[in-house]
C-alpha cells in the first residue's frame, strides 16, 4: 500500500512544478531554521535553477529528507554540505566558499568598489582644485 502510494507520489512529483511542502517535526526551532537555511543554500541537482527547499523535483524531496535525517543525527552544516558535495559536486552549493575558483566572485565586488571609489575621489579632487583656483 505504502509502496504503491510512493510510486504514485513519485509520478506526481516528477511532473510537478509547484511548492514543496512537507511536515517534518524538529526538536528545536534552531534545527528547523538550519533545515530551512540548508534548503535555501543547496541546489537541486536536476532542476533548472532551484534550491532544494523550493523545488518539487523528486530528488529535492530525497535530499531534504537526507538533510532532515542528518540534522536529527547531529551533523553540522559543514558535514551536511560536504556529504552533498561528495555525491553531487560543487554544483550543489549556492553559497560557494571562498577559494581559488571563487576568489574573483567574492573579492570582485570589493575590488570594484575600491577602484571606483578611488576614481571618484580623484575626479572630485580635480573639480575642487578648479574651484579653489577660481575662488582664490
Amino acid at each position, binding site marked *: 500500500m505504502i*509502496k*504503491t502510494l*510512493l*510510486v504514485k507520489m*513519485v*509520478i506526481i512529483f*516528477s511532473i510537478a512544478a509547484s511548492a514543496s511542502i512537507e511536515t517534518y517535526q524538529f526538536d528545536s526551532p534552531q534545527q528547523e531554521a538550519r533545515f530551512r537555511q540548508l534548503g535555501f543554500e543547496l541546489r537541486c*541537482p*536536476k532542476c*533548472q535553477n532551484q534550491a532544494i527547499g523550493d523545488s518539487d*523535483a*523528486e*530528488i529535492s524531496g*530525497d535530499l531534504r529528507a*537526507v538533510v532532515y535525517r542528518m540534522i536529527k543525527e547531529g551533523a553540522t552544516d559543514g558535514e551536511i554540505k560536504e556529504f552533498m*558535495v*561528495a*555525491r*553531487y*559536486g560543487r*554544483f550543489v552549493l549556492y553559497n560557494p566558499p571562498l577559494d581559488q575558483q571563487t576568489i574573483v566572485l567574492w573579492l570582485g565586488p570589493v575590488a570594484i568598489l575600491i577602484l571606483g571609489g578611488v576614481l571618484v575621489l580623484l575626479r572630485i579632487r580635480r573639480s575642487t582644485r578648479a574651484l579653489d583656483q577660481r575662488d582664490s
Partner: protein
Amino acid sequence: MSRWAVWAPLAIFSILVGFFFKGLTLDPGAQPSALIGKPVPPFQLTDLHTGKVLTRQTLPARPFLLNVWASWCITCQVEHPYLTELSDRLPIVGLNYKDSETAAKNWLAKLGDPYATQIFDPSGRLGLDLGVAGAPETFLVDSSGVIQLRIQGEVNDRVYQRQIRPLLETLK
C-alpha cells in the same frame, strides 16, 4: 576621461564576448559526476531475483555498465532495447532504484532482462551515494571498480559511440 580609459568598456565587452561564444558550445545543464575516478561506494544490498547479499566485491571484475533504472521511469523503457543489445558486448549491472519488488520484476518479465545482476535498492541509498539525481543514469565502471563515466538520461547508439566506446577501449 583619459585617452586609454575610454577604451576600457570595449575591452571588457570583448572579453565577455569571448566567454559568451565559448558558452554557446557548453551545456549549462550537463553535470559531470562527482564520483569520476572514485570507486563505487560501498554498499550492502540484495539481489532482486535471488535475495542474495550483494556488495562492492560481488561486482564484475571487468569493465561494466551500472544502469540505474526503475519501473516508474519512462525513459528507462525507451533505452531498454538498446541496453539489451549492448548486453552482448559488456556486462550490465542493474540498479533498481526506489522501486517496488513486484513492479520491477513484472517490468523485467515483460520487457526482457539484459542485466547480469540486479541490485535492489528500494530506499535509494546506493543511488544517493552515487549522486544519482533521477533515473535513468548509467555509469561506466572499470575492472578495478572505479567509476569512469556517468551518463544522465537515455543511453543510445549515439551516446555509446561518442562517449562510452572510446573510453571502454582505453580500459581494455
